[in-house]
């Protein structure tokens, strides 16, 4: 041990004159790397942002632009003529509503293969999305963008709640908190989802969700369900914090950990000797 301290001392005395002789500070390398990373990133951001600016100026919601966007972004998996490939389903007859739902919620274009496409930041501007669904809808008829009069959330809340309990609650949870399906798939939470996307999901049945067409749930039924969901969005939970509205699972876990934890803590305190 004494030997060790001695060698360290000699090393220190040896390095000190070196630094005084104009050698770089040890932190210089770190500073240089930081500067390098920031400048590279900045230049990259500049280039990519200019590229996307060029993209958005080129779209005007026209059919041709939709075709070009489709060919560039979707055709790899869905086929040049919407016929589908082994990597993606055919889009013939899916209609404007399906395209709007998938693209405007960020589910498409798909980031990676997985149990199901997840909601993520939207990749296109609203003009580009309009162009895309106009193009897809022009190739074959399908469910159209819903009429705005059904999206006002001014229908019958009680009727909507009953329909929601019968048709939706088993997957999406009675409070719309979502739930698990098989093999990694899940029904997403639907709190805060826009009325248009709720309507489009019902009428197109994205991914593993079944279709609820207008013969099953009339447009007015769908408007009532939207009314109920919007009512849930703006109604506070009476009993305080919801813990995800998952019922006995999260509430039981909370009680087991914090309730029993508190009881154990109090018991230990009661029995411990005071100092």
């Amino acid at each position, binding site marked *: 041990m004494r030997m060790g301290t001695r060698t360290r001392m000699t090393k220190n005395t040896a390095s000190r004159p070196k630094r005084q002789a104009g050698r770089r500070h040890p932190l210089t390398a770190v500073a240089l790397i930081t500067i390098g990373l920031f400048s590279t990133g900045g230049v990259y951001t500049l280039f990519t942002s200019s590229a996307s600016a060029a993209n958005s100026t080129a779209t005007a919601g026209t059919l041709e632009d939709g075709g070009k966007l489709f060919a560039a972004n979707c055709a790899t998996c869905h086929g040049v003529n919407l016929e589908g490939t082994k990597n993606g389903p055919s889009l013939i007859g899916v209609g404007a509503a399906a395209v709007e739902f998938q693209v405007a919620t960020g589910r498409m274009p798909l980031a990676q293969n997985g149990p199901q496409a997840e909601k993520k930041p939207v990749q296109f501007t609203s003009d580009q999305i309009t162009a895309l669904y106009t193009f897809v809808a022009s190739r074959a008829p399908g469910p159209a963008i819903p009429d705005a009069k059904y999206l006002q959330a001014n229908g019958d809340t009680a009727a909507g709640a009953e329909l929601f309990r019968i048709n939706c609650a088993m997957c999406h949870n009675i409070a719309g908190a979502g*739930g698990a399906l098989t093999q990694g798939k899940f029904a997403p939470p639907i709190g805060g989802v826009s009325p248009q996307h709720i309507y489009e999901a019902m009428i197109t*049945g994205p991914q593993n969700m*079944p*279709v609820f067409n207008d013969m099953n749930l009339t447009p007015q039924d769908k408007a009532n369900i939207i009314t109920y969901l919007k009512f849930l969005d703006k109604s506070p939970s009476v*009993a*305080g914090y919801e813990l995800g509205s998952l019922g006995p699972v999260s509430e039981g876990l909370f009680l087991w950990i914090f309730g029993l934890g508190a009881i154990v803590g109090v018991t230990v305190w009661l029995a411990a000797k005071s*100092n």
Partner: protein
Amino acid sequence: MADHHDGESGGGTVGTAVEKTVPKDSAPGTAVVVADRVENPGFPPFRARVGDKFPAKQREAEKRVSLLFILSIVGTVAAITAYIIFPITPGDMLSVRLNNLFLGIGMTLALLGIGIGAVHWSKSLMNGHDLVEMRHGTRGSDETRAAAVEIFRLGNEESGFGRRTLIRNTLIGALVVTPLPAIVLFRDLAPAADPVAGLKHTLWAKDTRLTRDPSGTPIKASDVTLGSVFHVIPEGLNDATDKLEQKAKAAVLLMRMKPEDLHPSAGRENWAYDGIVAYSKICTHVGCPVALYEQQTHHLLCPCHQSQFDITHEAEVIFGPAKRPLPQLPITIDADGYLIARSDFTEPVGPSFWERTL
């Protein structure tokens, strides 16, 4: 510390009129003398608390305890104040939440303040020595026991309970018979009809139309598009007097897939109509409603215990605790194109029961 017992000296007779029982030295029935009884280790050495050493600390503890009691008073006042400040307005659910929250916080402070204060008081200020209160035998003294026997003997003699056997026997008979009305009454809580027959049949019958839940409007085969799922009740269910009991058995899930995706077994080829299939919604495990249908995989998932049913293979169980496939409702269409049942379910729906033979 004067009454710092060592466990043996306390004896069992303090303040009681009973004798102390002497523990046996030998195990009963073996006559073996147990030689190595565990010695009473006594108490751990007394450890003085800070309050025992420094009187100033005792004053601090005294302040803390009274502060907790004052906190309890504050909590009580806060609870009353909160109840007045946040009244429950009918129709406004948020007011219920605020009312309950602050009322609860106030009452929690009030109760915990007293409780924690009392415990803290006893732990930090009250006498801190250890002591043992010995357990004493429960056998009464011979005089007490003789007196008790005498009371019984006197009671028997004065009432003539042992002598007048007619009275005694009729009394016992009357007591035995008293609970009989309860048996008759409780028997009527069970269904009057044989429940087994009720479990084997549902409201479905030949030519009963499939209707939407809850409206009860009939469903055309053309309404059920590919990938659709309909929640179905039998026609006339909404008019039934025992609607909920019937619905619990007759609820059906209607799905449409490509006809080539279905793999019906022999004899069941015509139970589907052009890819439209109807299955009981009642899980064969413990009867939860199975309605989590995945339209791409054609799997039905039960949310209670994760049983999975493959609709393309007659709802066979592919995962989970269910032991039988979901019963299929044979369907076809009538002259107007509406979906109708070919018959009732061909097996009992829902979980197993004792008399089930299938």
